[in-house]
C-alpha cells in the first residue's frame, strides 16, 4: 500500500548555473519512480534541467531545539563580514 512507499525530498536545478533547490516531496515505491513522479509533479512547465530525489529518511538535519547554541559560533564573529572594516571614502575599488 502507499503507506509503505517511502517519502522522497525533491531538489530541482532551475537552469544551468544555479544550485539545486528543494521544491517539495513526494511518495514513490523506488528511486526510478520517484524521479519520474518528480518530473511530472515539479517540472510540468520547464521549471528544471536536473532533478535530485533523496529518501527523506537519509537526510540528517539540525534540530530546531538546539538552534541557538548550534548556530552560536557564527553569531559573534562580526569580523567575518566586510562591513566590519572601516575604509576611508577616498580609497577606490574596495
Amino acid at each position, binding site marked *: 500500500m502507499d503507506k509503505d512507499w517511502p517519502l522522497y525530498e525533491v531538489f530541482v536545478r532551475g537552469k544551468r548555473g544555479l544550485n539545486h533547490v528543494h521544491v517539495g*516531496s513526494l511518495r514513490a515505491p523506488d528511486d526510478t519512480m520517484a524521479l519520474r513522479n518528480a518530473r511530472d509533479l515539479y517540472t510540468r*512547465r520547464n521549471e528544471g534541467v536536473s532533478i535530485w530525489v533523496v529518501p527523506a529518511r537519509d537526510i540528517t538535519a539540525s534540530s*530546531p531545539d538546539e538552534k541557538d547554541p548550534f548556530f552560536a559560533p557564527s553569531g559573534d564573529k562580526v569580523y567575518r563580514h566586510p562591513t566590519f572594516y572601516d575604509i576611508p571614502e577616498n580609497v577606490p575599488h574596495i
Partner: protein
Amino acid sequence: MAPSTGTAEARAAEPQGEAAHFERTVARDQRIEPRDWMPDAYRATMVRQIAQHAHSEIIGMQPEGVWITRAPSLRRKAILLAKVQDEAGHGLYLYSAAETLGADRSELTAKLISGRQKYSSIFNYPTLTFADVGVIGWLVDGAAICNQVPLCRSSYGPYARAMIRICKEESFHQRQGYELLMTLMRGTDAQREMVQDAVNRWWWPSLMMFGPPDADSTHTAQSMAWKIKRHTNDELRQRFVDMSVPQADALGVTLPDPDLRWNAERGHHDFGEIDWSELKRVISGDGPCNAERVAVRRAAHEDGAWVREAAAAHAAKQEAR
C-alpha cells in the same frame, strides 16, 4: 550578509520559551517551519485546512475531467487534460505540505473517501454543458485565485510555498476558461445561451466558495491572529465580485443578481443576499453530486490498489537483487 541583528541583551529581555518564540516568529511575519514548536491547535488547524484544500484539488478533477473525451477539438482536449493534470499536481503539493505536520497521506485519503474530511462545496455541482468548463475556469478558478493569493503569505512555510506554485498555475486555468467563453460568445445564439445558462448556475455557488459570512465564521478570528488567513471571507468575496463585474461586461453576460450595482459611496459593488441554507446543505453532504464525487474517488483508490502493491513488490524485488 549583514551581521545578526539584536544584541544579546535585547534577546535576554524577550520572553523565553517555545510558545514565546512561536508568537514572536508569527508577529514578525516570519514563517513557521515544519520542525519548529507550534501550539497543538495551530498544527491541527493547518492540517485540517491543508487537507481540505488538497481534497478539493483532487475532487476538483472530476467535474472537468468528465469533459476531456467530449471536448470539441484536439486543442481544447489538450488544454483540459493539462488543466486536470495540474489539479492533481496541486493536490499532491498540498498532501506533501500536510505531511510536514505529521499527517499521514494514506490516512488523509481514507478520511476523504469515508466522508470524514470535507472538500470545497463548489465541486458538488454538476457540469451540464461544455460552457461549464469555461465558467469553472473563469469564476471558480477566479474565486480560488482570490482566496489563494493572500495564502502565499500564510504563516506556515510549506503551505505558503505550495500556494505560490499553485497560484502561478491557476492563472492559466482562469485565462483558458475566459478564452473558451469568449469563443462561445462569438458563436451562435444557442452557444451564447449556453454560456449565460452556465453563468446563472455557477455565480452563486462561486460566491459561497469564500465560506460563511464573517459573523458566522468559526475559524476566522484565530486563523487571522496566527496569520494563517490574511483577509476575512467577506473581504475576499467583495474583492471577487468587484473583479468579476467588468469581466462579465466584457464577455457580454449578465450576472444573475438583480441587486448587483455599483455603490460609489463604498467604492464597491453591492450584491444580493446569498442563500446560506444552500451552502449548509451542500457542505453537510446534500448537494447535487456529493455522493457521486466521493464514490468516484473511492473507486479510483480501490481499483488502483493492485498498482500500488505491484510497484511496491517490484521495488522490494529490485532491492533484494
